């Protein structure tokens, strides 16, 4: 894996209980790509970490349930600090679809499996972006987002709404 030099070393913030399987997996994945992860126990620590490292490429990895706390304020704050977010949806998560849409609109990557996190991490390291990504999420209309609701519902293990 060759990392392109895009300025300061990239930083990956792994959000979650360090002893959890998820966090350990994310730490392993990050190190596998030659980046030393920064563990943050929760979204509050992640915001503090992101705000404190100006000018450094930052990716925030975590579960949607944690990253969407406090009405999802992490996502616009991360965008304002030029940081990217990658959120893993919890299996069976039945609440917060509005939050998923809000995360997408703020430019976050929302994935359903760990393998997709790997792809998002590789994409970000290579280009400073994550996928899938629209060219201009800021212009997305609610109708556009609703077009993916059936996909998300299937991802979350729910019946698609009529």
């Amino acid at each position: 894996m060759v990392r392109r030099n895009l300025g300061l070393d990239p930083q990956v913030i792994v959000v979650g209980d360090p002893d959890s399987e998820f966090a350990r997996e994310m730490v392993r994945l990050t190190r596998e790509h030659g980046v030393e992860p920064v563990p943050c126990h929760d979204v509050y620590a992640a915001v503090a970490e992101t705000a404190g490292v100006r000018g450094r490429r930052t990716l925030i990895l975590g579960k949607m349930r944690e990253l969407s706390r406090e009405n999802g304020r992490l996502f616009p704050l991360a965008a304002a600090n030029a940081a990217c977010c990658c959120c893993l949806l919890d299996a069976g998560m039945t609440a917060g679809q509005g939050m998923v849409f809000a995360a997408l609109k703020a430019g976050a990557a929302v994935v359903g499996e760990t393998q997709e996190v790997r792809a998002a991490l590789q994409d970000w390291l290579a280009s400073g972006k994550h996928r899938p990504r629209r060219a201009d999420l800021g212009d997305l209309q609610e109708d556009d987002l609703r077009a993916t609701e059936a996909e998300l519902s299937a991802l979350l293990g729910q019946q698609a709404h009529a």
Partner: protein
Amino acid sequence: MLIGDIGRVFLDAGSVDRYPCRVQANILDGIDAAVKGRFDVVGVVMDGTSSQLGPALRALRKSTAARIVLLAQMHEEPIARRLVADVPGEQKLADAYLICPALLASFYGVAQPSTEKESPRDVGERSRAGSGVPQGEAAPAAPAEALSAGLEQRIRHLEWLAMTDDLTGLKNRRYVWEFARQILEQAGPTGGRVTLLVFDIDNFKQYNDLYGHAAGDEVLRQAAILMRRCCRPHDVVSRVGGDEFAVVFWDDPHRLAGDVERDRRSAATEHPREAIFVAKRFQKEFGDADLQLLGPGAQGILTISGGLASFPRDGSTVEQLFRQADLALLDAKRRGKNRIYLVGEPQSDIAEIEG
């Protein structure tokens, strides 16, 4: 900087523009601002951030050298007190708290003026804690720290005077009304249970006249101690009149979160069982109390009459609950005293209720 819904805690929140202050509605925005800016004081509204208050304060503490002041509603005071307490080997998550609602001027009194800086010892401790907080200037101010501690003590004392009945040490009428108002505001949306007990000592005036005011005062103190002992730690016991007391029973703040809809239905239909149990226990203990001040044979001669009203069944405001409980109390008096009535149709003597 103030973080949270300041309209809930400051009576004059609309005047915040008159103070040198930035307001952030969300704790995450506050943490972000704290890292990027320099603040002398950060006030955090506890309500709304309480579910993750510890982690949020920990991150805020690491982000800023500012003094952190918690803006706590009355029922949050026990939590606030724990968060500002000195624990050996641990860093305090907050430096002070202010009981709300309050005025912005009170906040600035507790927060202290902009001349306050951290002492070199505090700065050193933050470094050892690995906070990464930029080092501030060394504080000159042993005098400023002493002024701060003294002023804070003074404010605490004034708060205590304003909220406490000095004869019994219980909360006073002003406190219990405001507390009940805040609790009912919270209980509505969350399905919380609140029950109000109002009671007085039967024939108290006669005892006062017969045995003297000193004896009467001691009876009131003993009643306060007994009631405090019978209640749960978080229930609010108050003296609201000469020999009249009020107790607010409410959900334990540390209870596990349950289904809100289930709780709401439960609150609307069930008897307030915990409150009935406590009231029965108090009746018995008061009757068994050995009140030697009243002379030989005094045991068993003092009784109480009372009324129990529950939210939301018997009322949805403080005024309604007190009115209903008072009416039940009056009915208990008319029907022979030495009984506590539960508001209902027909009114039930709690002595007849099982459990």
